[in-house]
């Protein structure tokens, strides 16, 4: 019985094909959860939208361009400042975002003039920035606003600016994955090959699908620098708009998030003959392997081994300390897609943990092929998991820790189970040797924190609380605990 129908899904039996438990001897050509298909009505999905995939995941991390969201102001706010992808230009892309703030009147009469005005105003407001990304959202797509036409007109008029338009209305596709796809393919079609970067090393790479979350990319850029390798296009963490237009000049594409950016890597391979090397940047063994491969590709194995030796000597004793304390702990990974398969073996093999359940929001079948091939027997694998399924899985596996996003994370916290942010990271960077120690430290701190047990206690009727109330003058403090039975309160908690 490889596929599982959870009790909470009895009214939506279609969910069974999305939920799988690996049995001994099973292979990925026998069972694979359905993935990257429309969410079933009745299932409260945690998925984002296509615009979110294009803006929040990819475009928003580019450091030196204006982010112009052509839509209602809420679209801008909800993808601004929520993910900590850093840059070395004072985090311009985290501090500023522009919106055309579409209202009813603009929906009725069209928003193209408003967009043109907004683009010009934005370039005036940021005179040192000459690049821009314009995102199409649900309402502006529905009314047929031609953002490319507006962008071309402004580029002709201003002369010294360049604008990239991405058509990513939220209703397109089944999840944010569609937005990743649109951004990749549009950038490849419209921008790659337009710019000739200055080449400073015989060894050149593009870092693809790495978004510099909490400085992950800085760690990797440092490794490349120490090996004498030039990063041309960093797609897109700390990435420069123009250098990303010069991606065709790299000799190797190093791919980290194959889900959100595998498309552009494949297109670079097809059109320019640049090979695609997929690596895992989490976990000592994986990181060392990735660096060895990059070193071997350029014939600089000695530099790779030197780097690995230095980093291992510096960080391994710390990792060993955490390993002793994390071994045997049960963990769930409920994230977007690739982190399931990137993390599972690193947690199990290097930290001795047991990954008991994995779920992804926007994974495709190949993400599950990887996750199931790397994951253990008896582990639960879920596509597009819903809230009630998560509660049921928690009851089944009783995890010590859950890596997930803030939405599910808030639910988890209410159950007093340690939660860590698997998207934005808690106290990263998480990549590289140093990053994996940070990750282990976050897990240790979460699991061993006394707060989870303390949070379960209802202190409102404790004696000291009553004394405090008397000292503060009762009603003057604004607190009124009279008539509240612990049972009633507990039900709310």
């Amino acid at each position: 019985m490889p596929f599982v129908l959870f009790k909470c899904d009895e009214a939506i039996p279609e969910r069974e094909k999305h939920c799988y438990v690996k049995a001994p001897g099973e292979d990925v050509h026998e069972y694979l959860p359905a993935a990257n298909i429309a969410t079933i009505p009745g299932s409260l999905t945690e998925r984002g939208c296509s615009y979110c995939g294009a803006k929040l995941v990819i475009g928003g991390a580019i450091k030196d361009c204006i982010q112009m969201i052509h839509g209602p102001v809420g679209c801008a706010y909800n993808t601004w400042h929520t993910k900590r992808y850093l840059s070395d230009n004072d985090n311009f892309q985290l501090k500023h975002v522009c919106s055309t703030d579409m209202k009813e009147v603009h929906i009725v009469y069209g928003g193209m003039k408003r967009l043109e005005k907004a683009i010009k105003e934005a370039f005036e407001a940021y005179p040192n920035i000459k690049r821009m990304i314009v995102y199409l959202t649900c309402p502006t797509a529905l009314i047929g606003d031609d953002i490319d036409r507006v962008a071309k007109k402004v580029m002709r008029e201003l002369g010294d600016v360049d604008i990239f338009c991405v058509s990513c209305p939220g209703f397109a596709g089944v999840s944010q994955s569609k937005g990743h796809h649109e951004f990749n393919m549009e950038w490849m079609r419209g921008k790659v090959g337009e710019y000739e970067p200055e080449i400073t090393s015989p060894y050149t790479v593009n870092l693809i699908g790495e978004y510099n979350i909490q400085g992950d990319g800085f760690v990797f850029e440092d490794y490349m620098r120490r090996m004498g390798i030039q990063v041309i296009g960093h797609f897109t963490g700390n990435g420069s708009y123009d250098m990303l237009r010069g991606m065709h000049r790299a000799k190797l594409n190093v791919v980290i998030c194959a889900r959100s950016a595998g498309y552009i890597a494949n297109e670079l391979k097809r059109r320019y003959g640049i090979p695609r090397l997929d690596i895992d940047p989490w976990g000592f063994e994986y990181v060392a392997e990735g660096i060895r491969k990059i070193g071997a590709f350029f014939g600089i194995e000695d530099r790779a081994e030197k780097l690995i030796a230095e980093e291992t000597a510096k960080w391994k004793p710390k990792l060993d300390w955490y390993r002793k304390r994390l071994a045997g702990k049960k963990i769930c990974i409920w994230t977007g897609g690739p982190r399931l398969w990137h993390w599972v073996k690193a947690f199990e093999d290097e930290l001795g943990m047991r990954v008991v359940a994995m779920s992804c929001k926007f994974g495709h079948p190949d993400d599950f092929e990887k996750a199931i091939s790397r994951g253990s027997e008896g582990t639960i694998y879920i596509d597009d998991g819903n809230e009630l399924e998560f509660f049921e899985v928690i009851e089944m596996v009783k995890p010590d820790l859950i890596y997930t996003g803030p939405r599910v994370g808030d639910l988890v916290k209410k159950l007093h189970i340690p939660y860590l942010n698997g998207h934005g990271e808690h106290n990263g960077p998480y990549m590289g040797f140093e990053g994996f120690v940070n990750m282990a430290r976050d897990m240790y701190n979460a699991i061993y924190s006394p707060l989870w047990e303390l949070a379960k206690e209802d202190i409102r009727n404790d004696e000291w609380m009553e004394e405090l109330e008397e000292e503060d003058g009762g009603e003057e403090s604004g607190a009124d605990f009279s008539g509240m039975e612990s049972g009633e309160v507990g039900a709310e908690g």
Partner: protein
Amino acid sequence: MPGDKSGIDDLAEKIYLFIQGKCLWQFFPREWDRKANIEGIMGMAAELIVNPKLPQPETLVDRYYYVEAKLLVSDIKKEFPQVLELGEDEKRELMERVKQKLLEVMVLKSINPELRLSSY
């Protein structure tokens, strides 16, 4: 072990499972690139396992296959030292069987519905 066909079958299965749990190149999203990777890397690995001094190829794509194959062969020798006892022909046969098993599971019998889409 040398000359023992069932022994080679058993070893090929173990190496296949090892690759399944480790190597990302077998999971590329479309049939064309998945097949190209498996054939390119396993073909290069079959050469490297009998001739470790094989020179690095000139083209970037072949060099990529070479690098993946080199690391794979190193892992195989470490994890399955019995490989070192095999003769040249047996090593080639072993790698061919692993390649065929990978092509069977990851391409021919794959139930991944996106594998044969013509576009991304």
